[in-house]
């Protein structure tokens, strides 16, 4: 019943035997024990399970592990350097962009994808871009502030 799947997760090559119906979120959390990827709604609405697949944000609860065969996956665990925080994580901390923190891994990864845009997004564009990530605590004000600052810091770091 099992089927072999190979991918890069946070820079490390991974090969495992999975059932075809295994979702990427379950694969990351249960097979690889990378529990930083959170499963909120499990219906592809809330975005807590957002990870980057080949640099693009996807909801890992709505993707099969076998669909990302050969791809490169980045989870929240793979974002930060060995010591300290990724600039986006640091910005979320500095601007109080989280309260309970459940949505934060998805928020941060979703925000990191925005760095690939040719010019920095406006507040309105950030809000629009975070359409697929729900936060039930903050009311989004500080998240938008954090994302703006994080993107500026990422630009500076590069």
């Amino acid at each position, binding site marked *: *019943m099992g*089927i072999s799947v190979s991918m890069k997760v946070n820079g490390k090559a991974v090969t495992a035997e999975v*059932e*075809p*119906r295994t*979702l990427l979120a379950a694969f990351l959390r249960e097979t690889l024990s990378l529990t930083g990827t959170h499963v909120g709604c*499990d*219906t*592809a*609405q809330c*975005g807590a399970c*957002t990870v980057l*697949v080949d640099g*693009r*944000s*996807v*909801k890992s609860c*709505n*993707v*099969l592990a*076998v*669909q990302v*065969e050969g791809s490169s996956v980045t989870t929240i665990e793979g974002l930060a350097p060995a010591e300290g925080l990724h600039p986006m994580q640091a910005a979320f901390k500095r601007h109080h962009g989280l309260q309970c923190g459940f949505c934060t891994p998805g928020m941060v990864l*979703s925000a990191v*994808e925005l760095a690939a845009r040719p010019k920095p997004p406006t507040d309105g564009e950030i809000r629009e*871009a975070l*359409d*697929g*990530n729900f936060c039930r605590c903050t009311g989004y004000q500080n998240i938008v502030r954090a994302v703006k600052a994080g993107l500026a810091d990422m630009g500076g770091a590069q």
Partner: protein
Amino acid sequence: MHPFNYHAPSSLKDAQSAKGGDVKYLAGGQSLLATMKLRLASPSDLVSLAGIADLRGIRADAAMLTIGAMATHAEVAASAEVAAQVPALADLAGGIGDRQVRNRGTMGGSLANNDPAADYPAAVLGLGATVITSKRKIVADEYFTGLYETVLEPREIITAVSFPVPKKAAYEKFKNPASRFALVGVFVAQTAAGVRVARDRCRWRGSIPGRRDGSRARETLVAGVRALARRRHERPERRHPRERRIPGAFGGGARRARRGGRGLGGRGYRASKPPCIPDRSTRPPPSSPTAATSPSGASRRRSSSR
């Protein structure tokens, strides 16, 4: 979801001849996987189309824009060719779902699924596009047959869609405030042959006025606006008389709002619910049998005591 066999062919031929009884083709999976998780679909075999290079790519010339079935919404939204030839289509693609969904969801998947709340069907109809499959070419007016239904046969795979380049085109939709799906979406295009109008569905209870060909677009728009108005709990007296009689798909809340008086639903909702433990002091006098059973009577009384 139920277990299934998974196939990842690299050619269209292999995809068509994949083994299995109940075969479903998997494009981006943004609708199909959710459907399977709810066990509304349980195919025995899932055939991924992601590895088939022929289904990708966007090609344009002066008169025609051809988009591969596996082009994601994000790719269509960001494509320079699409932006130059049919900017309305790029705009439409950039407004589907959310960013994560646009990174996975595909045009072919959307058209094969034909969700009435999807955006692409209106563009295909509005622009008079041609759906190209592994077996034939289907003109837009003949492709869609009903909610979630198309003329596609089992094992027929959409390979691309060709859009004639219009003189002008635009797409507009009302989003459901919670789900962000289109309550109603309308695509209008000025083509060489004249003006075409097409709509996606509105969540109108009962029969859906208007047809996919846009021949009753005006009625459809009006219905969509009314559906929106109902969601926003407009004052009942401003509604169409027929709507007052129909509880509506979202009618529970609207009905309670009306019982609680005009304005927002919250108060009416609370007031219309009988208290768990009846309090003697708030009970209706025994001489008023209608008030004893009528939630509206209860709400009036409680409102006035506050």
